């Protein structure tokens, strides 16, 4: 790594970014903070309520349930998608015409609008006319994701694996391709096993891209809204109501701005805190 020159004029280079992002982040965030400490009765009358909404949210069963479902969902997603994505990237050809074919086909799910992803899986899983639902029922599995919470969860997870594993594959593959051939030749001369090559060459070289993959997958799965909303609408009952679905129900459905504001802030802080923990743990070795 080259050393960086101290130069305060560099602020001018980052200024446009700071202004644009601040406009989009600071003003709305202040609005949310503002709501979160007030009570509203319509006609723009607001009363100061202090931390009442925060206390209510933290103590409410409903929030706990949504948070538990969210953590469960994100946990499963990470455990499936990261190893699967790395395995696929390792098995892909390194060069030749098939590389482009694989990459283009695999990237397709990433570029489909999220509501279309939800709608696609909805028509795929419909028990009577969908390919997946119909085949499962024909095979004797009693499957109806609009009625059975377990089936709804399985469909939701299958959808997310379908949707996002490719991102892990792309990142892991990009990391693998950046390893010079000389490393592999050296390993061959030393008679290293496949496992040793993976453990001591490929994995360390993929570490940076994998950190990004884990962080991106963590953040995005924690903020997921559109796909489950279109697929299951949070149902059956509340069984797939994840945090953001619950939040939108409160904010836009009932127009309870105070509780919604408080919940937004707590939600944001949880994402920040967990991301920070991931980031610190995964980059710890480099600091040593």
């Amino acid at each position, binding site marked *: 790594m080259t050393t960086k020159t101290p130069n305060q004029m560099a602020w001018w280079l980052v200024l446009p970014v700071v202004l644009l992002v601040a406009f989009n982040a600071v003003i709305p965030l202040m609005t949310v903070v503002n709501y979160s400490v007030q009570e509203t009765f319509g006609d723009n009358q607001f009363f100061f309520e202090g931390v009442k909404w925060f206390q209510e949210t933290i103590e409410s069963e409903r929030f706990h349930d949504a948070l538990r479902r969210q953590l469960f969902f994100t946990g499963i997603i990470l455990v499936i998608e990261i190893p699967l994505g790395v395995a696929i990237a390792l098995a892909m050809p390194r060069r030749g015409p098939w590389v482009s074919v694989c990459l*283009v086909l695999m990237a397709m799910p990433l570029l489909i609008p*999220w509501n279309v992803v939800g709608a*696609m899986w909805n028509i795929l899983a419909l028990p009577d006319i969908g390919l997946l639902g119909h085949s499962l029922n024909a095979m004797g599995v009693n499957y109806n994701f609009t009625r059975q919470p377990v089936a709804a969860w399985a469909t939701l997870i299958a959808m997310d694996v379908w949707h996002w594993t490719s991102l892990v594959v792309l990142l892991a593959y990009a990391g693998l391709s950046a390893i010079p051939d000389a490393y592999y030749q050296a390993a061959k001369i030393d008679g290293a096993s496949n496992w040793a090559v993976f453990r001591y060459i490929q994995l360390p070289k993929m570490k940076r891209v994998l950190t990004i993959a884990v962080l991106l997958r963590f953040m995005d799965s924690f903020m997921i809204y559109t796909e489950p909303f279109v697929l299951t609408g949070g149902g059956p009952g509340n069984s797939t109501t994840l945090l953001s679905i619950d939040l939108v129900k409160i904010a836009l459905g009932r127009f309870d701005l105070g509780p919604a504001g408080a919940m937004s802030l707590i939600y944001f802080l949880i994402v920040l805190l967990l991301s920070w923990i991931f980031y610190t743990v995964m980059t710890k070795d480099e600091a040593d």
Partner: protein
Amino acid sequence: MKRFTWLVPFLYILFVLLPIYWLLNMSFKTTNEILGTFTLWPRDFTLENYRKIFTDPTWYNGYLNSLAYVLMNTVISVTVALPAAYAFSRYRFLGDKHLFFWLLTNRMAPPAVFALPFFQLYSAIGLFDTPIAVALAHCLFNIPLAVWILEGFMSGVPKELDETAFVDGYPFWRFFIKIFIPTIAAGIGVTAFFCFMFSWVELLLAKTLTSVAAKPIAATMTRTASTSGYELGLLAAAGALTIIPGAIVIYFVRNYIAKGFALGRV
């Protein structure tokens, strides 16, 4: 063992293609056939669903609106992220590390949190229901991502390149545009791909910030689903068409990804 490794990507690609096949299959069927019988390919092959989308302005305008804000967002994000990423990769300045982390935190803000304040903010400045409002709102998560990726690419370029150019008497902006940007063309391609992708697929903010004039295709679809009953064929055709722009973009950047990139700082 080695001979069967191709099976892994092969099976995965089959899994990826399965829902897409079903979507295409549906889009060529009539509504009657979809609801009536279970068929693996259209018996009553029809292009009616596609014809409707290409002739009805409420449908094709949805695509044009979506493309408009996605392209604007990609251009804005990459343009402002380029100098910023350069600053982060080359210089040390007051608060640089904190600033970098603050930028990343915005990538972690759930769009659901910002939906309502965004609506009020963009209404207040009179941009509600314009493509530029959506393009600016998407900067919230795309600019941090663009800076992050570009910084990684730029850190891979040796600093001697800059120093030589400055010794040769290049002014900063001339060096930046004439020499530096062509050097990291691959990085710009990858960044533009990710910006395009995340702006194209986002719906919650795009829907919140538009009503009629700038309605994105995704919103047209959800509204059709609720108002005109259950026109699955039409919905499937509209969905199938949303795959095309992304497929074109990935085709153009495939070589950059195949060549590999070791992202710099995380």
